[in-house]
Structure formats: structure tokens, C-alpha cells
């Protein structure tokens, strides 16, 4: 799949922002006043910034409001609802914490739940797509949500929780890659099933329907960026999980080290998200002779 920068930035930043909102909602840390203001500013900048980035890949962003209408069937519509609900509830909670020194716990828990739900709905947009076997697996929502929570814990300065979550998210990241590598084979689609021409003998894509490229090839049979996949996986794992984990395990870690851990985590997650798209193979590629 085409690793569009807008979608990579959106899922990385929003994931982080909503992850932080989960912890702020739970009162971890129980901040009020100016400190709360800074925390919420970071969380909203990430979450809203990511959502804005996602509108850049829309053909008609001016019609975006229509996307709230189909929550009965569409995970993208549900994501829109969850995101807006989370941001509104958490804004009320932040209002109390920043200006009135009062944390309304019930509101915070609700906001935390909605923030987590937003991450899950984002994950389900990818998980639901049967035509991309690498995404269509139970580990996809688990991977995207643990990564988001680990980043959130890191940003919230919850050292112990962050250690556990970074470790867990790293393991699930590896599992998602390894399972993902087998998924296309398991899905059982081939040029034979795609064309129904399997039985008479060996089948080979002889000629494409067009001399140039097209939307399908650009969007779904995108192969650029798979070349360095193994190296990028090591970078994603090292920068995204291992290095931040190491940095926050240093006793008496300062804000500087914490900031470095966050920066490293973001860079690692960008590499991870690049691979999430670049390595995902769509079955339509079979019609063009991809995978033999």
C-alpha cells in the first residue's frame, strides 16, 4: 500500500496524542493549573494536528462533515465520532483541571475511555480490510493500541507503566511483523483464484491492461520502500521501543532524557508506520502478476 506521508503522520501523532489523553484522563499524573495546561496543550497539538494531517489525503476535505453520518457500518465514521467525543469530553475535563484546580474524575475516565476507543477505531479501519491480509489480523488493533498507550505513558512521565508498556508494545510489534509476513499466504489468494484460470495449467500475467501506470498501481501495488524492510524494522524496534525503554530505566532520569526518549519513540514509530503501509500487500496486485 502507498505509504502516504499524511496518513503516516496522522496515525503516529494522533496515536501518541490520544495515548497521552488516556493517561491524563486517568489522573496519571494528577495535574492541575499550569502544568495541566502544558500537558493538555501537548496532547491536543498531537491529536488534533494528526487529525488535520489526515484531511490532507482527502480529495474533498470541505465535505468532511458528511463522514459523521455512517457510524452504523463504517469504522472511519466511528473514528470521527470517537475522536470528536474524546476531544470534547477531555476539553471539559481540562477546563476544570487548568482553570479551577478541580479534576472531575468521572469525566476524566469517560474521556480516557473515548480516547482509547478512538485509537481502536483507527486500528479497525485497517483491520477490517480483507483485501490486505497483513492488516486483517487480530494483532493489528493490539499493535496500534499498545504503541499508542506506550507513547502516551512515556509522554505522561509514568515511568513504571511506560517501561511495562514499551516492553509489551515492542513484543507485539515483532509479533505483528512475523504474523503479518505469513498472512498473505494464509489468505490463500493467488493469481489462480483471482482470475479463476488456475485449473488449465500454469498461469502468468502476460500483459497489463495499460502501458503506463494507474491509480490502482500507485495506491495499492506500491512496492517502493520494501527494499530496506529488515533494516527499517531494526530501526523501528530500536528507536521506537528499546532505546526509550533503556533511557527511562536510568535511575533518576531527567526531563532531558525523557524528552530524548519521546523523540526517539516518535522516530521509531514513524519507521514502524512506514513499514505498516509499505509492506502491506493488496490482493489486487495479483491481477498485475505481483507475487508470481
Amino acid at each position, binding site marked *: *500500500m502507498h505509504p502516504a506521508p499524511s496518513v503516516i503522520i496522522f496515525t503516529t501523532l494522533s496515536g501518541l496524542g490520544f495515548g497521552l489523553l488516556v493517561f491524563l484522563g486517568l489522573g496519571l499524573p494528577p495535574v492541575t493549573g499550569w502544568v495541566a495546561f502544558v500537558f493538555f496543550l501537548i496532547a491536543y497539538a498531537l491529536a488534533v494536528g494528526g487529525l488535520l494531517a489526515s484531511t490532507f*489525503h*482527502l*480529495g*474533498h*476535505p470541505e*465535505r*468532511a462533515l*458528511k*463522514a*459523521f*453520518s*455512517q457510524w*452504523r*457500518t*463504517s*469504522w*472511519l*465514521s466511528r473514528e*470521527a465520532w470517537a475522536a470528536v467525543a474524546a476531544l470534547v469530553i477531555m476539553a471539559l475535563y481540562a477546563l476544570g483541571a487548568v482553570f479551577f484546580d478541580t479534576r472531575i474524575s468521572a469525566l476524566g475516565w469517560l474521556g480516557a475511555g473515548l480516547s482509547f476507543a478512538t485509537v481502536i477505531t483507527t486500528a479497525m*479501519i485497517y483491520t*477490517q*480490510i*480483507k*483485501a*490486505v491480509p497483513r492488516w486483517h489480523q487480530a494483532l493489528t488493533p493490539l499493535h496500534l493500541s499498545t504503541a499508542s498507550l506506550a507513547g502516551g505513558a512515556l509522554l505522561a512521565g509514568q515511568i513504571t507503566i511506560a517501561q511495562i508498556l514499551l516492553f509489551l508494545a515492542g513484543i507485539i510489534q515483532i509479533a505483528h511483523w512475523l504474523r503479518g509476513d505469513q498472512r498473505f499466504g494464509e489468505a*490463500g*489468494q493467488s*493469481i489462480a*483464484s*483471482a*482470475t*479463476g*484460470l488456475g*485449473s*488449465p*495449467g*500454469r*498461469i*502468468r*500475467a*502476460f*500483459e*497489463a*491492461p*495499460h*502501458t*503506463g*501506470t*494507474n*491509480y*490502482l498501481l500507485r*495506491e*495499492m501495488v506500491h512496492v517502493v520502500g520494501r527494499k530496506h524492510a529488515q533494516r527499517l524494522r531494526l530501526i523501528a524496534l530500536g528507536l521506537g521501543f528499546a532505546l526509550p525503554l533503556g533511557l527511562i530505566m536510568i535511575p533518576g532520569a531527567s526531563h532531558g532524557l525523557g524528552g530524548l526518549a519521546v523523540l526517539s519513540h516518535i522516530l521509531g514509530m514513524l519507521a514502524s508506520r512506514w513499514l505498516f503501509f509499505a509492506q502491506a500487500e*493488496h*490482493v*489486487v496486485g495479483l*491481477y*498485475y502478476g505481483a507475487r508470481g
Partner: protein
Amino acid sequence: MTSLPETTQRKLGLVIDLDTCVGCHACVIACKGWNTENYGAPLSDQDPYGAAPSGTFLNRVHSYEITPPHGQAQLVHFPKSCLHCEDAPCVTVCPTGASYKRSEDGIVLVNESDCIGCGLCAWACPYGAREMDPTAKVMKKCTLCVDRIYNENLPEEDRTPACVRTCPAGARHFGDLGDPDSDVSQLVAARGGFDLMPDLGTKPVNKYLPPRPKDQWEETDILAPFLEPVAESPQGFLGWLDRALERL
């Protein structure tokens, strides 16, 4: 509404005969022509006369080579457009309700004025039936020529999809696949029509007819192998040339 109808009164669709298709791409051109000049945003081209031409098409013809264990290799031309699936994954993912499946005839359509161009439906379709037009920035797909098949301003013989009307080989058939007595349903039953990627559970309405087995070269005379071969070595001038070249 992006909820799929539980049943549709009719299941209009295409039956494509892979045995008869000659790969002339006339259906591709007829489709592009009709759907550029009529309903909806035109199907644009980018850099059409330049070095890297690219364009939006609702119907494309692939070609595959089949090499059976015995006998000659065979070329199969494979036209592919929207299959108007009963369980269309492209419809349910749409966040705006722009994509829908009609309950009266099962045609899957896009309401272009509601489309935000997110591209998720094109991801959800396993068959590559949907293409985002880079100029109009809305999703384009086969409409089964909904503006032809019910169009009373056209002569009756023209009230079929443009691809079917134009096919010079008669490889494309249009009809109600929900009615077991329709011509298309009987054709599918007679020729063993099949679904593309049936395991994905999309339940395509369009069916494909397999290529018929080709004739095999058979021995015409059981005594033929025992006959002395005629002209094993060249005679006359060619014989002289053969001998002369061997001597060199």
C-alpha cells in the same frame, strides 16, 4: 446509506466470456467514452500525449498466458470491472454514505457530491474496481451504465451497458443474474460460470465463463508413424547448398 440491502429485487450484472474475448479493448474505450460524456464527473487523463500517460478507467482488460501440462500455450484476455458484489465491502466502509447498493437492481453506485475522496472503498475492494479520479478527486466506478439501461430516449437495443453494446465478439452479456430463467443465468449454468476470489465472501454478481478446452492435434492415421518419411534430406539446389556448407 452504506448498510447493504438484505436482498435486492434483481441482480443486474455482466457475464464475461473468457473463451470469446479477443482482447480488442473496445469495451474499455466504449466505457470511457460513455462515462466521460454522460453521467458524473468525466474520466480524466493525465499527461495523455506525454511520456507517462495515465488515466481513470472503469473497465480494464488484462491478458494472461496459460500453459497447460499438455498442448499449446493459450492467451486469455480478461476484462475486469466492478462485479457489483452482493456483500460489497466497498460500500460498508464508506464514511459518508456516498457509496451505496441499490435495493431494486443491486447496482453499486457512488453519489459523487457526497464523496470526500478518502479512498477507503478502493482499498476495501479486492478486485481493483474503483479508481479515484485525480482531476475530480472523487471515486469513480462502473455504474453498469445506469444512465443507458433505463434510458427511454435510447433505442431499445442500446439499453445495455456501453461495453456490452460495443463488444464485437459477443463476449459480454448483461442481464438479471438473480432470475434463474434469464438468458445470463442459463448461460452461467451451461458454461460453468465462476466467481473471482470467492473465498473473500464478497459474493460477486458478475460471472466469468471459463475458456473452453482447445482442440488437441490427434493422430489421423494409425499407420502414419510407420511410413517412410518423405524428403528427409534436401534435394536439388538446397541439397547442394546443404552439402557444401557441411564441407566447409
